[in-house]
């Protein structure tokens, strides 16, 4: 078995996705998606079924695009030979993952270390402990998977993705099932990892996307409808959010409105004249985009 350095020598992986499309029967999962990243934390934000998982699977070399190209550090992720080089750089947490119930926490991560060719046991075990420490699981190393809570299992999934310090970390809904304290720890950890690796994660929660990432790609219906920083996205809603005394759902141009604890209504869309505009949030901007009445703005 070929060993390799436990520390990524080449720094963050360079990810380049160009014009990727993918269909499942009549359903379009991805449509002309382009994305690039080189270091830092990138979030794919979008509603359920927007294509986030399909895009992550293409990056992880476990799904194939019908059209377009996916390259990691210049290696073609769809080529049967070159994808091995892509896999040497990868840490991957799929959306749905399970582990043998009778295996211990240590064994699960160690097994992934073998699959990642992290070297002989003594060297690999150091990498395993580092990953468990990063996920806050060292004290549970000897516990069987079957006895773990949902949050602990999710952290185990994150630990196996982190093992070997990959230069490209792909995490599909990594905060699922984590309590607020665990989310905070994950946020810290990903921020640190983003300094030496490229992290691409998916989420359907705006606050999570803003907390975890420096760059956001918003996917709707398989297309990227916005790319930029969380502040860029928030700015797209400026002048389109106001507080009203009534829901105004029947007024043309009002996309959504919802009742606030004060009894007033927060409205987004094209404001009628005379209303008092409010400072937009990331959620306002996201809802405007997903609702289809956002500013005409393509991927950057």
């Amino acid at each position, binding site marked *: *078995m070929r060993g390799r350095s436990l520390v990524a020598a080449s720094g963050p992986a360079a990810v380049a996705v160009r014009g990727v499309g993918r269909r499942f029967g009549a359903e379009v999962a991805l449509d002309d998606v382009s994305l690039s990243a080189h270091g830092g934390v990138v979030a794919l934000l979008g509603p359920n079924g927007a294509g986030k998982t399909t895009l992550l*699977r293409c990056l*992880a*070399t*476990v*799904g*194939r695009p019908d059209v377009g190209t996916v390259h990691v550090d210049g290696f073609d992720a769809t080529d*049967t030979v070159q*994808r*091995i080089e892509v*896999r*040497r750089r*990868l840490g*991957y947490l*799929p959306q749905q*993952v*399970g*582990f*043998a119930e009778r*295996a*211990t926490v*240590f*064994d699960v991560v*160690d*097994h*992934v270390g*073998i*699959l*990642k*060719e992290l070297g002989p*046991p*003594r060297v690999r*075990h*150091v990498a*395993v*402990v*580092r990953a*468990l*420490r990063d996920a806050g699981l*060292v004290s549970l*190393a*000897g516990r069987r998977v079957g006895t773990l809570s949902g949050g602990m299992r999710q952290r185990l999934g994150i630990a*196996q993705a982190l093992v070997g310090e990959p230069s490209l970390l792909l995490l599909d809904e990594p905060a699922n099932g984590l309590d607020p304290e665990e989310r905070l720890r994950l946020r810290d950890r990903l921020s640190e990892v983003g300094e030496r690796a490229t992290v691409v994660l998916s989420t359907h929660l705006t606050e999570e996307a803003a907390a975890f990432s420096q760059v956001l790609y918003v996917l709707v219906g398989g297309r990227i409808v916005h790319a930029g920083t969380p502040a860029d996205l928030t700015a797209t809603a400026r002048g389109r959010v106001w507080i009203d005394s009534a829901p105004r759902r029947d007024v043309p141009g009002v996309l959504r409105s919802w009742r606030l604890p004060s009894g007033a209504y927060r409205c987004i869309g094209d404001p009628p004249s005379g209303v008092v505009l409010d400072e937009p949030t990331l959620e306002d901007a996201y809802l405007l985009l997903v609702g289809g009445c956002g500013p005409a703005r393509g991927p950057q």
Partner: protein
Amino acid sequence: MSPVPPPAPPSPSAVPDPGHPSDAVLSDYATQRVGSAVAVAVELHLERCPGCRHAVNAAAAPERIAHNWTAIEAELAVPRRGIVERSLVRLGLSVDTTRLLLATPSLRRSWWLAIAACLLFGLGAADPDRPEASIQLFLVLAPVIPVVGVALAYGPGVDPAHEITVAAPLSGLRVVLTRSVTVLAVSIVVTTIAALALGEAYAARAAAWLVPAVVLAVVCLAVMTALAPRVAGAVVAGSWVVANLAAAGVADDELVLFGGAAQVVTALLGVAAAAVVVARRRRFDLAEVGP
């Protein structure tokens, strides 16, 4: 009255002391620049000299100390290995291969129950008064055991961590073969024990399941390059049973597929299936199955 401070540990002097290694030697030891003989001598001294231990700690790079602590933590975190794993390592298998084969998803309760059911049915049908005819069920069911095991060993739908396995650089063929050999070995051992239980009356035929068992496992692997694992297992096992019924009807001999000529044909089929597995080995590197 203020407490008397403990005596400070003797610090190594800049002037070489005949009782202690020099600062230069301690520094070289801390940065791994001494030979093994000097290292042993320094370590023997360090065991009884707190001052020199302190000097070595100061000279060692913090990252090295952190790495050493992690290595110690790793040794402590490794769970105690089970008896099966220890035995396999003692038999000469590498630790990594042992870990890979013990992670085979088939080695679960449902497969053990399937083995028990197949063997009980087979053994239950055995009748010492007509050994040739009554052994047919045992011989037909025994090769199905490894087929089920192989079909449950690798692939989407049977391994909950399949996407993680595929997204790793280790060859999918190596993983699937390790797991398949594991289930085949377990199947052969268990079925052999069951065959021995049949007794001397069946001795002439009791081993006739072995070649079909190995061949059907390889055929199942070949079919898994085109179909989902469970479907592949069902197709191979079903075809084997139907072929037996059909051949027995045509030849008027229940055991026609276990005769010498049939065994040769079966073995050739296995060779062809192995060629298909090798030619299509990259299919095992994909998360999705299909043509």
